[in-house]
């Protein structure tokens, strides 16, 4: 059985030290930063809950063998389409999804698909009206098409880079 281990303890310690320094030298901005972080943390609770449920559902419905089949080395174009759709439909900050991706990666998810998923997240469906309002409809359509095209290209390059290294 895999040993339970906290990830990022040193990173957390470094941020705590940073906050202590800010509190000593710049108390006003310390309060502002702290309040922003607490507000952000609170706003993420529903997303975290959703991700835990989604990860549990994936764990339950897709066994490692199936993950390998659908998203592993020999998976086809369909997996790229799933990664793009998953990226577009996923909400919340990227770091909230790291746990699920890491879990799927340990079961055989291709690195290229993770890259495609992460880049496709730049297509923000709920923010499209705001984007159109600021930049116009033509700009919004063009940039989002390019994002999807380049999310696929990045995935292919990542797979090539890593397979080249592992074969050396």
């Amino acid at each position, binding site marked *: 059985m895999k040993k*339970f*281990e*906290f*990830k*990022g303890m040193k*990173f*957390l310690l*470094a*941020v*705590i030290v*940073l*906050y202590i320094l800010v509190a000593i030298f710049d108390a006003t*901005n310390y309060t*502002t*930063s*702290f*309040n*922003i*972080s607490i507000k*952000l*943390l609170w706003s*993420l609770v529903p997303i975290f809950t959703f991700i*835990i*449920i989604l*990860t*549990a*559902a994936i764990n*339950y419905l897709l066994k490692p063998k199936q993950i390998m089949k659908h998203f592993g080395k020999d998976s086809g174009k369909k997996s790229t389409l799933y990664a793009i759709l998953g990226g577009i439909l996923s909400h919340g*900050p*990227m*770091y*909230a999804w*790291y*746990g699920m*991706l*890491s*879990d799927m990666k340990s079961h055989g998810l291709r*690195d290229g698909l*993770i890259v495609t998923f*992460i*880049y496709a*997240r*730049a297509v*923000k469906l709920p923010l499209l009206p705001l*984007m159109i309002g*600021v*930049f116009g409809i*033509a*700009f919004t359509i*063009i*940039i989002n098409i*390019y*994002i999807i095209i*380049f999310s696929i*290209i*990045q995935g292919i*390059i*990542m797979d090539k880079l*890593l397979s080249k*290294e592992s074969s050396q």
Partner: protein
Amino acid sequence: MTNKEKQITIKKAFLNALKGFISILPMMVATIGLVGLFQTYVTSSMLSNLFGYSDGLDILIGTFTGAISSGNGAISFIVAQGLQDQGVSLYALSAFILAWVTLSFVHIFAEASVLGTKFTVYRNIMTFITTMIISFLTVITLKLFI
């Protein structure tokens, strides 16, 4: 599989997901803390002073400033609108909003600790280059239509 076995499997799947989430909590709390600091110290007026040299340099600076900024994607559009009002080019703004959502130097440590250092380095370099290419292509394509 019997119903009981199925229930145990669901419970196990949920506990595994919860355990995985708890294991990355320190990393996530640290990242959120860092986001708070960045949103306080990196202001839009600081950013606007950096642009206006050349299209190529604007794309590079837009990508870099987007990558060091952090927060909800909606904020990037609002900041971009402010920068647009101050005369910052569309090349820079495209790079800025795209880098904001695809790159984040604040998240790099978290990404490396979970997905691996090599993966994180490759992905971020690739994304940095891609963001600049897309920004350039978007504005060029837009000019063809308008």
